[in-house]
């Protein structure tokens, strides 16, 4: 190896180390701080490892309920809804021969990314008010589904497009009804795509703060991102020991879900039939 190559290699390694540490530091903090009795915003390896912070959290029934019931209900409901509707819609858009369906699909995503978020908050709030869905899980779930669906459909459409039509046609000629074809042939082959979509939707809903903050009124229905504010002192200072511990607990379900799907299906954000689908 000549000098130049070694030089570039060293530069490359330094660059990678810098980037990695930048992204790794918060994670290190998240892992270290919860076990420390006096956590600060610095990453320090605790001299005495303690689980007192977790005990304190589990004594806070409001926070526990927020994380293990409200958040799961909201994220789970959104995941289910987005996966179901996005799959059905993507299948329909991909399989029906409607004039201009590609433009329709693109407009869908374009508009949703323009109109989404804070700009839509007032109309969304009014809509939910008239539907009497303020302060209900369903209200949050509906808004989240609505927000995620366009991107979900777009993501799912890619998987459906890569599914050869001859599978479905063969099933049709074999004597299957269209709904049997969808259930027996399309769904099983699309399952990896649906799983990716489900995890994505779950993570989006799990981390969403704004919509539950606006829609949910009663503390007993608040999900974790909102409930985390109960770990601020009355003066507004964050109690870092509790917040870090709660954050760690808050991160675990998503990590587990990701690992589970990755192990079972492998993460792919594009379509394609991997032989056997195993």
């Amino acid at each position, binding site marked *: 190896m000549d000098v130049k190559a070694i030089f570039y290699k060293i530069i490359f390694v330094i660059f990678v180390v810098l980037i990695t540490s930048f992204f790794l530091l918060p994670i290190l903090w998240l892992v270290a701080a919860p076990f420390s009795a006096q956590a600060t915003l610095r990453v320090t390896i605790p001299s005495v490892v303690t689980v007192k912070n977790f005990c304190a959290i589990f004594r806070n029934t409001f926070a526990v309920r927020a994380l293990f019931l409200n958040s799961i209900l909201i994220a789970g409901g959104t995941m289910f809804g987005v996966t179901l509707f996005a799959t059905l819609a993507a299948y329909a858009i991909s399989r029906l021969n409607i004039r201009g369906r590609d433009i329709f699909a693109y407009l869908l995503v374009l508009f949703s990314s323009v109109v989404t978020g804070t700009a839509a908050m007032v109309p969304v709030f009014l809509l939910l008010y008239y539907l009497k869905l303020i302060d209900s899980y369903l209200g949050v779930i509906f808004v989240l589904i609505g927000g995620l669906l366009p991107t979900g459909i777009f993501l799912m459409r890619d998987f459906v497009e890569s599914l050869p039509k001859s599978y479905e046609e*063969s099933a*049709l*000629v074999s*004597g299957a009804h269209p709904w049997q074809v969808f259930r027996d042939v399309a769904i099983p*082959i699309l399952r990896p795509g649906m799983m990716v979509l489900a995890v994505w939707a779950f993570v989006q809903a799990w981390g969403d703060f704004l919509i539950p903050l606006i829609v949910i009124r009663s503390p007993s229905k608040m999900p974790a991102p909102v409930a985390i504010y109960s770990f601020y002192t009355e003066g507004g200072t964050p109690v870092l020991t509790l917040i870090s511990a709660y954050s760690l607990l808050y991160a675990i379900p998503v990590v587990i879900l990701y690992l589970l799907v990755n192990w079972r299906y492998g993460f792919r954000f594009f379509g394609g039939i991997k*032989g056997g689908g195993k």
Partner: protein
Amino acid sequence: MTIVPQSFLSLQDLTKAFGKVIAVDKVSLHIEKGKFFALLGPSGCGKTTTLRLVAGLEKPSSGRIFIDGRDVTALPPQKRDVAMVFQDYALYPHMTLRQNIGYPLKVRGFPKKSIATRVEEVAEHLMIADILDRLPSQVSGGQQQRAAVARAIVHAPKIFLFDEPLSNLDAKLRLEARAFLKHLQKELGITTVYVTHDQAEAMAMADEIGVMFAGRVVQVGSPLELYRYPKNRDVAAFIGNPPMNILPGRLEPKAGGSQFSGEGYTLFFESIHVLEDTRAYLGFRPEQAQLMCDLKDSGIPAQLYAVQPLGSEVLITLLVGTETVYVKLYSESLPALPDLVRVKVDPSRLYLFDSTGACIKVPK
């Protein structure tokens, strides 16, 4: 008023247009029960679309389809009681071969036990019984093909549809599969429509062939009929291995007949009468021509291009003007040929096509 046709599978003036493109143009076919019918044509001629119309996967723009005396034109595919083997086999990748083969029975609501028995029986017959529990990705191309055929015959359909089922197999397996499919079809006696672009496949397997060009069925007949009496130049140039040699020239009236003049040769036809000097085409089969080394001999002057020994025969490529001509000699040894030769064909073996391509003379 509709007249219910006598034949088992009947297509009446079937037309399918995709936008402005007419893929299938007034196709009428009548296929008898138990026959092996091949739909032959170059790619893009509409043969696969015709097959898909029969299967119900496409809706015709006009025309009707009858299966066993029943008008199925408006029926969805699942109610037509046909079976189709796709070019890519379309074996469901998430199901084992056993589940794949049993699927047509499952959707028909057969009890589990009888499905299992029937699948075993069919698999036994097609010699794939020992790999039933594998996934399609875990078996060879030939086995996948057999599994696809097994899935098609498992519910004893009225009609069997094949869409180029052998094109994904290598040459050796293809020959094997040809014999296997033909044997199976004869044994089961299921009316079959088989789409292919390979004339050798159609000739070897079919009882009857329909030749399609540009959406139209140009000629229907037995393999030998098509070989001997092609209706036009397109059919003649498509059938045979290699296909018929076609040479352009002019045909003019002469006392007692007509004279064909091509690149450096003239031929007299007694029985043919034309009114005026016209464009025409001469045709002859590679296997019916002879080569003369002596240039004083009469015949079509040609230049030697390549000599290919094929074992039992020798295929010789020649140039007549700018046209390529094939001659097949049944000889195991390589003939010593000069650069310039004469191609001689028994006049009774010659074909003539008029300016529109229609055949005006066939061998006696």
